[in-house]
């Protein structure tokens, strides 16, 4: 029997018309279904574990829409994005795309790299940085692509961002140049780069051959070694595909753990079908939800990772993102700092908004601290130097696009004309690969 879990809006995968949609519970699974008056019905597996879907839904913290001085226009969401008054979340990560050139030609690529050309120059990049920082002066800025290391002026671009006040700059890279060029990691670190967001799909070349078309493991390991030598932090970012690497996520965690403190964590991204992907509507068995990643992690790292460590992050829709935070204890085990119960009693984002409204630049006052000669001090320092974050993000494609989720998105691409567009809207493609947005 089908049970409707909740209703929302989506797009037809064929004509991109806005249509009603809903989540349904069927045989213990959560499905996303919708029907276009012209192109018929569509149903796709969303989460394999409907109980978990519902439990996470209850943890949802939805901010109200905010007056941004830009009323929604006639075209509406997601056709005329640029953060209008209907959008519920500010920018937490701003993505600046530096190029669409890439030295790989992956089977799966959200940006569909090498298919078009866009390379903003210094003046335009300055405007794009300014737009990101005007949206949120404390946002993380991710330099992305294509492959951003294809640009010879990348160190200058990093310096520009830092000069303009970016508190956290990360580089989304496949790591090939980091591996190939001694001194390059140190050069980026010296320019002000804070973190390498490294494509890292596993520890078996068979995975790279299937996802990236060639053996890459040796290069990935070399890139990590170069970053370690340069003192540059790395976040491992695997794309997760059932039948390819879903059964080896534990290995990735153990590898990351062995490289603490330079490896800061692992950020899993189940494959979504946008940009370049194998084509057509994905079969349910090819679908991977965040719940599959969490279950796989707990099964593959028994005794160390537990379901209750994983929490939906407050800045996101609960089905967009999860995180768990650990530190490496003196015995070499990951000890959890996050607990599911931390979100109890905090299910309304309005609570946060009230607190924000009370924000007056409180004057700080003297408090002695930072001493490591107490048990608390030693613990605090350990959590600082040996922390490890396991997180995941479920991107939306045209088959499971939920406009309600999209309006809560805080990962925004800065467009060439300096608008901020939610990541999953910017990269959305119809079933034939036609894009909604282009730079």
């Amino acid at each position, binding site marked *: 029997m089908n049970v409707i879990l909740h209703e929302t809006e989506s797009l037809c995968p064929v004509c991109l018309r806005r249509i009603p949609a809903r989540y349904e519970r069927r045989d213990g699974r959560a499905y996303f279904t919708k029907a276009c008056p012209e192109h018929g019905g569509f149903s796709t597996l969303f989460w394999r574990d409907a109980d978990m879907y519902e439990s996470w839904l209850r943890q949802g913290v939805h901010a109200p829409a905010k007056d941004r001085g830009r009323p929604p226009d006639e075209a509406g969401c997601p056709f005329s994005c640029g953060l209008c008054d209907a959008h519920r979340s500010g920018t937490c990560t701003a993505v600046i795309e530096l190029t669409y050139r890439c030295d790989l030609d992956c089977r799966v690529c959200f940006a569909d790299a090498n298919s078009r050309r866009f390379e903003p120059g210094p003046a335009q990049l300055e405007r794009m940085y300014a737009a990101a920082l005007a949206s949120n002066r404390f946002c993380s800025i991710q330099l992305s692509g294509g492959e951003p290391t294809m640009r010879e002026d990348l160190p200058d671009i990093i310096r520009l961002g830092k000069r303009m006040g970016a508190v*956290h700059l990360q580089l989304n890279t496949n790591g090939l140049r980091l591996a190939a060029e001694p001194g390059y990691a140190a050069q980026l670190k010296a320019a002000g780069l804070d973190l390498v967001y490294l494509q890292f799909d596993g520890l078996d070349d068979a995975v790279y051959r299937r996802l990236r078309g060639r053996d890459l493991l040796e290069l990935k390991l070399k890139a990590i070694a170069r970053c370690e030598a340069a003192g540059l932090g790395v976040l491992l970012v695997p794309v997760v595909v059932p039948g390819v690497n879903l059964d080896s996520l534990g290995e990735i965690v153990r590898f990351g753990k062995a490289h603490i403190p330079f490896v*800061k964590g692992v950020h899993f991204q189940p494959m979504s079908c946008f940009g370049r992907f194998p084509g057509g509507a994905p079969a349910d068995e090819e679908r991977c939800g965040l719940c599959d990643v969490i279950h796989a992690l707990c099964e593959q790292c028994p005794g160390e990772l537990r379901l209750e460590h994983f929490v939906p992050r*407050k800045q996101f829709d609960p089905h967009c993102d999860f995180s768990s935070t650990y530190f490496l204890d003196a015995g070499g085990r990951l000890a959890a700092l*996050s607990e599911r119960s931390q979100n109890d009693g905090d299910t309304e*984002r309005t609570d946060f908004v009230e607190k924000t409204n009370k924000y007056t630049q409180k004057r700080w006052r003297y408090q002695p*601290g*930072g001493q490591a000669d107490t048990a608390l001090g030693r613990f605090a320092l350990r959590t600082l130097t040996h922390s490890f974050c396991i997180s995941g993000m479920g991107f939306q494609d045209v088959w499971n696009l939920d406009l309600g989720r999209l309006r809560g998105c805080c990962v925004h691409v800065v467009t060439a004309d300096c608008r901020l567009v939610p990541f999953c809207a910017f990269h959305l493609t119809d079933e034939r690969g036609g894009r909604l947005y282009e730079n």
Partner: protein
Amino acid sequence: MKRMGVDADMALGSALELYPQIYPALLSQGLCCVNEENEGLSLGELARSLGREPEGFIEALNAAAGC
């Protein structure tokens, strides 16, 4: 001269203005990002929202701030 550091009453946004170098430490403590919803939270409130004891959380941030 020793700098004075952050405390549990200080708003996240104020702390970052004074000590931008604590940003990676905030990430290591479980924060995903700083945005309009949380920059007005006090560090004590933020610690509790992350399931952390404020005292240890503040210690860690002060260590990162070099205080």
